[in-house]
């Protein structure tokens, strides 16, 4: 196994300097997620501005993968239309649940493509999805009904 293939530079960079960290007010939806197998936790807030994601803020503790993933998420969705964000969410979930067999679309996922290697390690997929589960749940709480649809994350 090639450690570097999994822990791409991009992942390590986001892990060391996570974007969007710290909880901010005001917000429209919030979610608290835990990974029951390792005790990692994440609290995430979403602020909407009409159909646009205005802000994503978060705090918590976790491994490099979960921390980097929520940082990338922040980059991907903030300042985007909700529909775009949901499309990215679906694409990311599909990538992560693809057992390494899904070819990621860099136009959609940007830095998120770095997680392609993680998809080969089922035990880490949960880590990578933790932030996205929180994002989805926070959107639902913020009243974005269509966030209920789409990929199921587990």
């Amino acid at each position: 196994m090639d450690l570097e293939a999994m822990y791409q530079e991009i992942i390590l960079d986001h892990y060391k300097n996570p974007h969007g960290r710290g909880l901010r007010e005001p917000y429209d939806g919030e979610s608290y997620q835990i990974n029951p197998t390792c005790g990692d936790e994440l609290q995430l807030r979403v602020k909407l501005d009409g159909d646009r994601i205005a802000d994503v803020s978060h705090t918590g503790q976790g491994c490099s993968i979960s921390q980097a993933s929520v940082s990338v998420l922040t980059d991907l969705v903030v300042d985007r239309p909700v529909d775009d964000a949901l499309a990215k969410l679906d694409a990311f979930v599909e990538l992560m649940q693809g057992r390494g067999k899904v070819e990621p679309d860099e136009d959609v996922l940007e830095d998120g493509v770095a997680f392609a290697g993680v998809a080969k390690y089922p035990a880490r997929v949960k880590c990578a999805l933790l932030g996205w589960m929180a994002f989805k749940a926070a959107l639902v709480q913020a009243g974005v009904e269509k966030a209920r649809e789409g990929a199921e994350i587990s």
Partner: protein
Amino acid sequence: MTATPLEAAPLDVAAVRADFPILTRTVRDGKPLVYFDSGATSQRPRQVLAAERAYVETSNSAVHRGAHQLAEEATDAFEDARERVAKFVGVDAGEVVFTKNATEGINLVAYSMSNAATAGEEAKRFRVGEGDEIVITEMEHHANLVPWQQLCRRTGATLRWFGVTDDGRLDLSDIDSLINERTKVVAFTHQSNVLGTVNDPAPLVERARKVGALTVLDACQSVPHAPVNLRELGVDFAVFSGHKMLGPSGVGVLYGRRELLEAMPPFLTGGSMIELVTMERSTFAPPPQKFEAGVPMTSQAIGLGAAIDYLRAVGMSAVAEHEKQLTEAALTALGEIDGVRIIGPTTTESRGGAVSFVVDGVHPHDVGQVMDSMGVAVRVGHHCAWPLHRRLGIPASVRASFYLYNSVHEIDALVAGVREAQRFFGVV
């Protein structure tokens, strides 16, 4: 011309038998083994042994808990087995809970229901108490009877049941009064392990739905022997055991409709079924994990997956057809013996391959002993269906139960055994 689908190919008994090492052994001083006790437990083909062994020798580790390669492989193999089981009975993997046997599955539902009393609002529909009724049948195996008696004892609910007709069929004449607004559960067997009777779930499911009762199907004797699609049957829960369908002992299956498993309180608690744990309180994982506390019967689930592959390769329709031939042969041959009384339907109409009978003047235990001395393994006693025997006015019976590895000429040994018992005990 199109190729014949696999399911339509008749079963090649000789080829099947070659996969079961135990069938080549002899018993009681060199008699070839005639195994007619598959209703109690079936034999395992070498493919099942090989699958378990391969797992143990290459990937064995704790599932859902580790991040190393072995744990990944083990988790994949385990979940893959779950998929196979689900597909085999037409449901989703998330609706399949692995238990130690079918008995645990029924107890799980019964205990979850009494646990609902102290669980949250989402579990409300599972609550039972005084004034509520649980309906079963008089032909149930103890596994689908005693847990409901105990649930009634814990909660104050009342147990009621469908009777059995003299020819071994379910008497549904009072269905509309038996299943009523007070009914919380209707639990019944798909195929009697004594009579062979196959019950049509449709009227029971329909009536139960009308009054909002949950249905629990004991599929222990149907899933191993014929194509069964649980979704199509429309039952809410169903159970069956690995060891009765060529799989290992120590693994059973509970099917539950997803929304029910989601709302139902947990039963066994401990590791791997939790979401968050503090000293004060815990929350629980989504199903099926919620119902699988502790390290599971991993290699056994994998063995069951291999058993299902085996059954699919033979084809369940072919299995059913083969058993029908065996049953027909047995019913005919036994029916020709004076002093033999068959318990249950005497034709193969809505009937599976368990043929129980009594021999006038010879106690079932003694019939079994004579058979055993001739190498024929049958079961004697009440077969865990004591009330049914009482209903039929007999203390016990002899049961021959068939499976895909039995050949029609083995029926001759059964008949010879009965005749020898009659001769030995001087009743002919």
